[in-house]
């Protein structure tokens, strides 16, 4: 059987119709330099050894695949398993990618690191690896997100990085990305831009996917060990889509496993107030890639709405757009209210406070578990822990500290 997994991206950086390199000319050379560095290094045994050593000793991988007994009993159908990315150092899957990209930056001799962040997890993960190598680090963050993720802002500062609050546009993740791209255009000679999701111009969607695929690779081994078969479904939340892509990618050719991405439905997809481009968007170009995009009737990018800063983004990684069109993955959305309900339920049932992003994946179990019988095995990718969201949730619940 022909593999779909290794088909994309093509030499121009496309996944089917999606992807590409849509950036100002000044960045073209930097992208080529990055692509050739990555191509030369990715199968280099020394590089791989270093990457997996750091993942093991610094991040604490492999992360467990944990049987969620009370949640399983609650639904009363298939077994629910949790991929514990929340147990990684810094508290989310984001560290996997930054560990890999900082090695590329080092190899390329870059002295200055920049990144964008929404929920702050990628900012923390980037500041962490930059601190470890003693590199100057600047994090761009929408000023609205600086407010709602203040705990992570302080963590980033503690790690020695500078946080730049971005006021332009909607002052969220998309605007942080704009500003990081502008910094990169200006300081391209000595600066490495660590993009935090499977978004942006080629080769980023490929690089971020590959580094994060350690999640899906571990899942193949762990599924075999723990229930002696491949899972019936993997459920993951999708903003830009890095945690989902990392979990899905190694399973693309394992057709018995359903791949389900859960987008942020905000006030409800039908209201238009959401962040669910795969459910309610159309193809367009943003931040260097052609992909599903939330846009208005004159081609302008629409403001998004989600209780979760990490999912509050109008675009999505181009490989997800391809997986949607090809039918290999399914994309659904849950509302803010459903995600908040799941946030509380998972905390109480399992003793795990999930990130609000992750809570979206859990919320979809209400629908999904009805489709399975007792023999099924369903994996939820617990992309991050919820400590960072305590203030947001407390405020919604009317609690003041």
């Amino acid at each position, binding site marked *: 059987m022909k593999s779909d997994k290794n088909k994309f991206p093509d030499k121009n950086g496309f996944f089917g119709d999606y992807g590409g*390199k*849509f*950036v100002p*000319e000044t960045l073209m050379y930097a992208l080529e330099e990055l692509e050739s560095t990555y191509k030369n290094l990715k199968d280099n045994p020394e590089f791989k050894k270093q990457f997996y050593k750091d993942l093991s000793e610094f991040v604490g991988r492999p992360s467990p695949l944990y049987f969620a007994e009370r949640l399983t009993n609650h639904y009363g159908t298939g077994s629910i398993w949790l991929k514990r990315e929340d147990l990684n150092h810094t508290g989310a899957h984001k560290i996997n990618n930054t560990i890999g990209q900082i090695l590329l930056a080092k190899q390329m001799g870059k002295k200055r690191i920049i990144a964008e962040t929404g929920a702050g997890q990628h900012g923390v993960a980037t500041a962490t690896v930059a601190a470890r190598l003693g590199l100057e680090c600047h994090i761009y963050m929408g000023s609205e997100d600086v407010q709602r993720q203040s705990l992570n802002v302080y963590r980033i500062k503690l790690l020695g990085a500078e946080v730049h609050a971005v006021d332009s546009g909607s002052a969220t993740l998309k605007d942080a990305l704009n500003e990081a791209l502008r910094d990169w255009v*200006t300081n391209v000679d000595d600066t490495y831009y660590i993009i935090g999701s499977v978004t942006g111009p080629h080769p980023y969607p490929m690089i971020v996917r590959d580094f994060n695929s350690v999640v899906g690779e571990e899942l193949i081994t762990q599924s075999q060990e723990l229930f002696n078969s491949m899972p019936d479904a993997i459920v993951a939340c999708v903003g830009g889509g890095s945690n989902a892509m990392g979990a899905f990618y190694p399973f693309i050719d394992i057709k018995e496993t359903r791949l389900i991405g859960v987008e942020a439905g905000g006030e409800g997809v039908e209201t238009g107030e959401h962040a669910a481009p795969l459910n309610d968007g159309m193809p367009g170009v943003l931040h260097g890639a052609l992909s599903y995009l939330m846009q208005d009737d004159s081609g*302008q990018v629409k403001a998004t709405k989600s209780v979760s800063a990490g999912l509050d983004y109008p675009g999505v990684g181009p490989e997800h757009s391809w997986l949607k069109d090809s039918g290999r993955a399914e994309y659904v959305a849950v509302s803010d209210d459903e995600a908040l309900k799941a946030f509380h339920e998972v905390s109480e049932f399992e003793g795990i406070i999930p990130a609000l992003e992750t809570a979206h994946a859990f919320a979809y179990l209400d629908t999904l578990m009805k489709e399975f019988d007792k023999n099924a095995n369903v994996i939820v990718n617990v992309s991050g822990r919820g400590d960072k969201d305590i203030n947001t949730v407390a405020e919604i619940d009317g609690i003041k500290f």
Partner: protein
Amino acid sequence: MNRLTKRLSDLKKDNDKALVAYLVAGDPDIDTTVELMKLFVASGVDIIEIGVPFTDPIAEGPIIQKAHDRALKNNISLESIYKMVGEFRKHDDETPLVLMGYLNTFIFHKKLIEVNQDNAIDSILVVDIPGELKLEDYGIKNQNINTISLISPTTKKDRVESIAKNSTGFVYYVTLRGVTGASNLDVNEINANIEDIKKHALVPTLAGFGIKSSEDAKLLSEYADGVIIGSSIVQMIEENSNSKEFDRIGKYITEIKQAIS
């Protein structure tokens, strides 16, 4: 003949340099944009570059970003820009008009560009596509609209040739590493790179990004076939948008045109 091609060849015959002035359509409002375009021409501008507002203009510095935001508050779309350009063309059928913007807007309004009502627009510059490509590569075809490609200080030598040859309007040399309106011009690098571009280009090479004073313009026009002024004009438009008295801009443009002639 395309107005842009004609204007550039006329300037060359006269041994003169081109002055390109930029504004954002709909900033501060669409009627004022038409008035500003007329003022540009009266003050000595050879070519007008019209910024098409976009929510996420990643190549722009803060001054032009804010102008995009102001225009979007007025609901400016490519449709309203075509109406505005039609209005301008009633008064002026000679000044070349270039649209500068981001790919998403052009793809979205593909039909408008293919029709190009009354051939009002002469050229399109898409900021966020590789220089070797043109709108035709994204399925938008119009033979009367020519292409302006960007070459930057970081463009590798092997690509300079193919990008230069891809340009049918003019080659736009980005004079610095940065966004529009920055200020770190490196004259020696600019000189060497423009010389290199000219070896391959079939059309004139103009310089833009970071040119603010008539001194900058004079210096760069020694190497380039013309200069493009954006952020400093957009800033003056912002500062005078309440009174709508733009004499200052006219004076500024005339000074620059004199400096490069």
